[in-house]
C-alpha cells in the first residue's frame, strides 16, 4: 500500500515549518501526512517543531491587531461626503436647451476681406504683447517647491500600478 507522500528529511521538514507554520492543520494534506510520519521517529524534527511553536506563540502576540475603532470606521464612511464622485452628469434633452444667440453682422465681400486682415493683425499684436510680458517676468526657479503644471497633470505612478 502506498502512502501517497515522499518521506521527509529534517531540512525539508524545517522548510515546510517555515512556509506553513507549526499548526499542522494548516498544511496541505500530503505534506501534513508526511510531517506526522516524520515526527513520530525524528528527535531533530520534534525539536524543530517545538521551536516553531514557540516562535508562533511570540508572533501571535505581536501579529494580532485590534479591530478598527468606531472613529476610524466613521472617518472612512465619511469619505464619500468629503470627496463627491464625478458620476456621469445628467444631460438635458436637446429640446430643453435654450436657442443660441447668433451674431448677425451683414458684411460685403470687400469688407469681409478687410475685416479678416485686421483681425489677424490684432491677434498678432496681442500675441507679441503676451510673449513680451512673459519674457520680462521672472522665470520660476527649478527648486521652486510649487510647480503648478506638475500639480495639475501629474498622475501618481502608484495609482497607475494599483489599477493594473
Amino acid at each position, binding site marked *: 500500500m502506498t502512502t501517497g507522500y515522499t518521506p521527509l528529511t529534517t531540512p525539508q521538514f524545517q*522548510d515546510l*515549518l*517555515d*512556509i*506553513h507554520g507549526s499548526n499542522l492543520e494548516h498544511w496541505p494534506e500530503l505534506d501534513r501526512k508526511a510531517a506526522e510520519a516524520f515526527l513520530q521517529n525524528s528527535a531533530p524534527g520534534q525539536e524543530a517543531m517545538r*521551536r*516553531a511553536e*514557540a*516562535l508562533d506563540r*511570540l*508572533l501571535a*502576540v*505581536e*501579529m*494580532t*491587531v485590534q*479591530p*478598527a*475603532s468606531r472613529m*476610524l*470606521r466613521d*472617518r*472612512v*464612511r465619511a*469619505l*464619500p*461626503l468629503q*470627496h463627491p*464622485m464625478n*458620476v456621469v452628469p445628467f444631460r438635458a434633452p436637446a429640446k430643453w436647451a435654450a436657442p443660441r444667440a447668433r451674431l448677425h453682422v451683414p458684411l460685403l465681400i470687400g469688407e469681409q476681406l478687410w475685416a479678416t486682415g485686421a483681425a489677424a493683425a490684432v491677434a498678432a499684436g496681442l500675441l507679441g504683447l503676451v510673449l513680451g510680458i512673459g519674457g520680462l517676468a521672472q522665470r520660476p526657479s527649478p527648486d521652486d517647491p510649487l510647480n503648478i503644471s506638475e500639480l495639475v497633470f501629474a498622475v501618481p505612478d*502608484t*495609482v497607475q*500600478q*494599483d*489599477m493594473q
Partner: protein
Amino acid sequence: MKLPLGNLNDDELMAHVALGNKDAFAILMERHIDRSLAIAQRIVHNRSDAEDIVQEAFLKVWTWASHWRSGEAKLSTWLYRVTVNLCLDLKRRPTMETLAAAGEIPDPAANAQTLVERQQTDSAVVAAIAALPERQQAAFALCYSGNLTNIEAAETLAISVGALEALLVRARRSLRERLKDKLG
C-alpha cells in the same frame, strides 16, 4: 426582485459604488477594514499611521470605483496591494520617531517584573520583524496578520506562490535566529 446590498459580492458592490452609492461603499468598508488595518499596522508598526493608510486606501476604492474592471482581479487582493504599497511608501520616507513608537505606558497595577519581561519580549519581536527586508515584512503581515492564504498573499504581492514561500522561509529563519534566546 433586488437583493439587499449586504448579499452582493464585492464586484457587484463595486458596480454600485461606481454609481456613487455610499451604502455599498460602507458595506465594502465593513468587510475589509479590519484586515487592511491589521496588515498596515504590522508593516508600519504604528497604529496612527496604519489608520491613515487604511483611510487613504479606501479613498482610492471610492475615487477609482468607476475604473474597476469586474472579474479581472479580486477587490480584496487589489485593496491589500494598495495598502501594502502605501505602507512601503511611508516606510521609505524619512520620519521622526513618533510618540506611539516609543511604546505604551505600562499598567502600574500589573506585576512589575512580569510587565518588564513582557515588554522586553514584545520589543524584541517588534525589532526582529522591523529588521526584516520590506518584502519579507509584507509577506509576513499578509499571512500572519491578514490571515491570507499563501495563494492570496502571493496574488496580493503579484509574485508566484513559490516566491512568497521563499520570502516566508527567509523571514522565519531570520526571526528564529534573532529571537533564539526567547524561544527556550
